[in-house]
C-alpha cells in the first residue's frame, strides 16, 4: 500500500469548499476509512427498524438492491418505479460486465489498482475516499451476486471467468454473456420480490414521482401519479432515497430506455438539492448509427467488441462512397492504432468517441450522412476463426444484423458514438446524502464516483455498491441520530406539493395554443444539446444553447399538445411532464459546460486542448465539483464548489499513447 503524500495544493485546492458541501469523508489512511466510518456510525435498534418508513424511488441495480437490503434489515420500505415491474429498470440493458478487484486472474490487480484506475480514468474529478470505498466493496458484490445465483461466465474448471474491458490493463471484468446487467438486475429483483413476499417492501409499479416533499428542511415524502388511473398520491416517510438513474435522454437520442428521465432528480433539485457536474456526460463509442429522422433511440453495441474489432475509415475522402471491400488495406486509416499505439482500439471511451467525431468532421465518415466509422472483424475472424468470434459476440452480431440488415461476419459493422451514461447528478456526501437532509441519492442519479469520465464495467459496480453495501449503513446512521416529528399527508408542505403537481398537469393539458407534440419538443431540445453540448463544446455554442433553450421552453408551455385527460393512462402526458423538466435541466447542463473552462473526461472544450489535440485540464482553476443551486425558472443558478484533494493519486495528464 502506498502511503499518503502531501495533498496537491493548487490554488483551487487551497480555496475552501462551500460550507454547503461538506463531504463528511473520513480522514486517516484511505484503506481504513470505510471500516472506521462504519464503526463510527450509529445503529438503529433492530426492534425499531420497522417503525421507520423509507421511500425508495427507482428499482434498478441501486434502488432494487437498496430496497431489498433495507427491507431485509427490517425497515418498512415503499419502492416506486414507472415500469410495470421492477425487473424492467434500465440497468437491465448493460451488456459488458462488472468490475471487481478480485485478482482471480493473478495479473496484478488489487483494490488499490482499481481505485487508482478509477480516479485517473475519471480525469481527477472524483472524491478519493468514495472511489476507494467503491473499489473495496467491488469484491463483496461478486460474492453476493454469485450467492444469489447470478450465472456469471465460467471457465471449464468451474471458476469464474474474467475479461479485460474498456482499456483496463488487467482482466477484472465479470460477465454473463452480453447480458450482465440483466442477470445482475434479476438478482436484485429476486431479492426485492423476496422482501415483498416477506412484507417488508411494498412495491408501487407504474408510479411516477412528480415532486419531493420537504418539511422542516428534511425530505419527508414524495408526490406520485398512478400511471394507470392518474390518481395523485402523497407518500410520507422518514427518509427518501432516489435511485432514479441518469439524464442521458436530455439528448433525445441516447442508448437509455425511452422512459428514462430526470424528473425525480430535477424535482429534488428544485426543492433544494444541489446538482453537481451536469456537464459530465459519457458518449459511448460503439453504437449503431442513426438511420432516419423517425429514429427513437440508439442501440449500443458492447464495447467488448473493441477487443477484437479494428476501427478504421478510408484514408481519403474520395473513398467514403465505396463499399468496405473495395477499399484496399493500404488505403485504410486505422486511426486509433495509429494515434495511440500502446492502447490502440482499447483507448478509453471519451478518446475513442472524439476520434470518431474528428475523422467524420474531416469528411471521412462512412454510411448515411457520413456519421459512422467501421469496426472490422475481418482480421479477428482470420486469426481466430468464425466460431470463436461467434462464441464471443454472437448475440451482438445478431442484434446488429437485426437492426441494420448487414451481416458483420461478412462486412464491417458501422458504428458511431452516442450518449450512454451521465457522470453528473445530485450532489451527495460520503454518506450518499444530498444537500437536503434525509434525501439520499444512489447509483447513476448521484454524481459521486466516476469523476468526469466513467470506466467501462463500473456503472453496475457503483449501482450495486450503493444499493447493497452503502445505503443500508448510512441511512441507518441518519435515522438513528435524527428526531423527526410525526407528520402525515395533511401537512401544509405536503398539500402544497400536491396542489402544485395538479396545477402543473392541468397546465400541460391546457396549453394556450396546442400545436406541437411533446416528442417534437424533445427532439428539438435533444438536437440542440447534442450539437452544442455533445462530444465537443465551445463557448459560442454553449452560449447559444443557453439562449435558445429558454425560448424553446417558453414555446413548449405555450403550444405543447397533449390529448386526453390526467385521470387515465396517458402516455403523452407522461412524456410531456418529462420533457418539461428536460427543458429546465438542459439549460443547467449547458451552463455548467460553459462555466467549466477546461477539458476533462467527457467534457471536451475545443478551446482547451493540448498541442496534440488531447484534453487539457486546468487543475489550478477547476479541481472542484461544481454544484448548482436552483433559484427559479430562468434565473441564473448559483455555483457552489467542493474542492477536491488528491492525497494518493497525483493528478497527471492521462496518456494512452
Amino acid at each position, binding site marked *: 500500500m502506498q502511503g499518503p503524500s502531501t495533498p496537491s495544493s493548487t490554488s483551487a485546492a487551497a480555496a475552501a469548499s462551500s460550507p454547503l458541501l461538506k463531504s463528511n469523508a473520513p480522514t486517516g489512511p484511505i484503506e481504513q476509512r470505510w471500516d472506521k466510518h462504519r464503526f463510527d456510525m450509529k445503529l438503529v435498534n433492530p426492534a425499531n427498524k420497522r417503525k421507520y418508513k423509507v421511500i425508495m424511488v427507482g428499482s434498478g441495480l441501486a434502488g432494487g438492491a437498496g430496497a431489498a437490503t433495507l427491507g431485509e434489515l427490517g425497515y418498512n420500505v415503499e419502492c416506486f418505479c414507472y415500469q410495470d415491474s421492477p425487473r*424492467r429498470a434500465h440497468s437491465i440493458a448493460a451488456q459488458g460486465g462488472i468490475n471487481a478487484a478480485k485478482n482471480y486472474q493473478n495479473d496484478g490487480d488489487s483494490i488499490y489498482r482499481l481505485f487508482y484506475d478509477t480516479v485517473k480514468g475519471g480525469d481527477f474529478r472524483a472524491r478519493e475516499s468514495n472511489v476507494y470505498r467503491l473499489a473495496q466493496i467491488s469484491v463483496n458484490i461478486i460474492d453476493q451476486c454469485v*450467492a444469489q445465483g447470478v450465472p456469471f*461466465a*465460467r471457465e471449464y474448471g468451474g471458476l469464474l471467468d474474467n475479461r479485460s474491458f474498456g482499456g483496463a490493463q488487467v482482466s477484472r471484468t465479470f460477465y454473463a454473456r452480453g447480458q450482465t*446487467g440483466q*442477470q445482475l438486475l434479476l438478482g436484485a429483483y429476486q431479492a426485492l420480490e423476496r422482501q415483498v413476499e416477506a412484507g417488508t417492501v411494498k412495491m408501487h409499479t407504474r408510479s411516477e414521482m412528480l415532486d419531493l416533499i420537504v418539511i422542516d428542511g428534511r425530505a419527508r415524502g414524495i408526490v406520485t401519479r398512478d400511471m*394507470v388511473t392518474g390518481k395523485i398520491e402523497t407518500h410520507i416517510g422518514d427518509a427518501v432515497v432516489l435511485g432514479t438513474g441518469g439524464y442521458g435522454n436530455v439528448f433525445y437520442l441516447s442508448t437509455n430506455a*425511452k422512459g428514462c428521465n430526470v424528473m425525480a432528480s430535477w424535482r429534488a433539485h428544485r426543492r433544494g438539492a444541489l446538482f453537481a457536474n451536469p456537464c459530465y456526460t459519457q458518449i459511448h463509442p460503439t453504437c449503431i448509427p442513426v438511420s432516419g429522422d423517425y429514429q427513437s433511440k440508439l442501440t449500443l453495441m458492447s464495447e467488448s467488441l473493441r477487443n477484437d474489432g479494428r476501427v478504421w475509415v478510408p484514408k481519403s475522402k474520395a473513398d467514403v462512397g465505396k463499399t468496405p471491400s473495395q477499399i484496399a488495406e493500404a488505403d485504410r486509416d486505422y486511426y486509433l492504432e495509429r494515434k495511440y499505439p500502446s492502447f490502440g482500439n482499447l483507448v478509453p471511451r471519451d478518446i475513442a468517441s472524439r476520434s470518431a467525431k474528428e475523422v467524420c468532421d474531416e469528411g471521412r465518415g462512412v454510411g448515411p450522412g457520413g456519421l459512422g466509422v467501421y469496426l472490422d472483424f475481418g482480421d479477428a475472424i482470420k486469426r481466430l476463426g468464425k466460431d470463436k468470434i461467434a462464441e464471443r459476440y454472437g448475440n451482438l452480431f445478431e442484434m446488429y444484423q*437485426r437492426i441494420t440488415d448487414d451481416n458483420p461476419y461478412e462486412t464491417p459493422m458501422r458504428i458511431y458514438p452516442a450518449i450512454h451514461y451521465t457522470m453528473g447528478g445530485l450532489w451527495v456526501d460520503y454518506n450518499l446524502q444530498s444537500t437536503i437532509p434525509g434525501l439520499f441519492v444512489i447509483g447513476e442519479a448521484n454524481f459521486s464516483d466516476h469523476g468526469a469520465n466513467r470506466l467501462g464495467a463500473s456503472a453496475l459496480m457503483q449501482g450495486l455498491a450503493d444499493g447493497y453495501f452503502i445505503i443500508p449503513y448510512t441511512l441507518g446512521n441518519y435515522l438513528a441520530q435524527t428526531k423527526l416529528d410525526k407528520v402525515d399527508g395533511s401537512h401544509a408542505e405536503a398539500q402544497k406539493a400536491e396542489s402544485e403537481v395538479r396545477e402543473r398537469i392541468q397546465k400541460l393539458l391546457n396549453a394556450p395554443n396546442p400545436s406541437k407534440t411533446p416528442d417534437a419538443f424533445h427532439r428539438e431540445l435533444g438536437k440542440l444539446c447534442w450539437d452544442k453540448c455533445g462530444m465537443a463544446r465551445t463557448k459560442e455554442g454553449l452560449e447559444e444553447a443557453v439562449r435558445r433553450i429558454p425560448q424553446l421552453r417558453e414555446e413548449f408551455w405555450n403550444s405543447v399538445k397533449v390529448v386526453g385527460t390526467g385521470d387515465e393512462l396517458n402516455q403523452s402526458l407522461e412524456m410531456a411532464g418529462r420533457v418539461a423538466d428536460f427543458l429546465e435541466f438542459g439549460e443547467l447542463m449547458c451552463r455548467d459546460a460553459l462555466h467549466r473552462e477546461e477539458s476533462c473526461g467527457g467534457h471536451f472544450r475545443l478551446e482547451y486542448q493540448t498541442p496534440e489535440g488531447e484534453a487539457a485540464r486546468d487543475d489550478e482553476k477547476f479541481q472542484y465539483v461544481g454544484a448548482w443551486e436552483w433559484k427559479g425558472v430562468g434565473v441564473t443558478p448559483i455555483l457552489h464548489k467542493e474542492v477536491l484533494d488528491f492525497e494518493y493519486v497525483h493528478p497527471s495528464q492521462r496518456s494512452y499513447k
Partner: protein
Amino acid sequence: MSGNSGKTMHIKLQVWRQKNAQEKGAFVTYDVSDVSPDMSFLEMLDVLNERLIHKGEAPIAFDHDCREGICGMCGLMINGVAHGPMAATTTCQLHMRSFKDGDELIIEPWRARAFPVLRDLVVDRAAFDRIIQAGGYVSVRTGTARDANETRIAKQDADAAFDAAACIGCGACVAACPNGSASLFTAAKISHLGHLPQGQPERMRRARNMIAQHDKEGFGACSNHRECEAVCPKQISIANIAMMNRDVIRATTIAEDDKQTSGGGM
C-alpha cells in the same frame, strides 16, 4: 442501409383500442403511409401516434422501454403471432423490412385471463411478479456470502442456468399458449436456480410454491403445444418445463413439507 433508403411503404393497421379495463374494446383501422423499411415496428407506431395527436385523437397506448430487446416491457400480437413474424425477436427489435408495401396487420394486446388489458395494447403482468415472490429467488442475506470462487460450478451447469435465466418476462409465452399457461416463464426461473448449487436448498419448496401461485393467478396448464417456445424472443426451451414438472412431482409426492431434499442434477 441495405439499399432501403428512400423507399417507403404503405401499411394498413387494425389496432385494438380499449379505453380502460372496464370498457369494451374494438378494432380501429388506420392507414399509415411513408413507412420506412428501416423503422422498427414501434417507431412505425410512434409515427402514427404523432399523426393522431396532431388530429386531436388519443394516441395508441403500448408498453415499451429499452427498445433493444432486453427489458421485456414491449409485446404485441401481430397477425396472431406474439412479437410478430421474426423468430427470436421482441416487438421492439422487429423492423418494418419484415413486411411488404400494402400489408394489412392486426395488432392486439396479449390476451390471457391473468393479463387484464389496462388500455389499448397495455396489459397488467403483475401476476409474473407474484410468481417470483412465491419462491423465484435464493434466500441469501446481503453481505454474508463467502468468496465467489469457493464453489466451483461446471461450465455446462452455469451455461444451462444462463439459458433459462435469459427469460425477459415479456409474457409472449402466455399470449401464444392456447391454455394461457405461464409454464415456460415459471419453469425458466425454477430451472435457472435448479441448475445451480446455490438453488438446491430451496428447490422443492420453490417448485411447489411457484406453481401453486401460477395456478392461483389463473394461468392454464401446459399441454405441450410448444407455441410458447416458438414465439419466445429468448428461445427458452420447453425442456425447462419438463424439469419443472419433475421438481413439482417430487416436491408434492416425495418431499414432505419443507424437508429439504436436493433434486440432484439434470
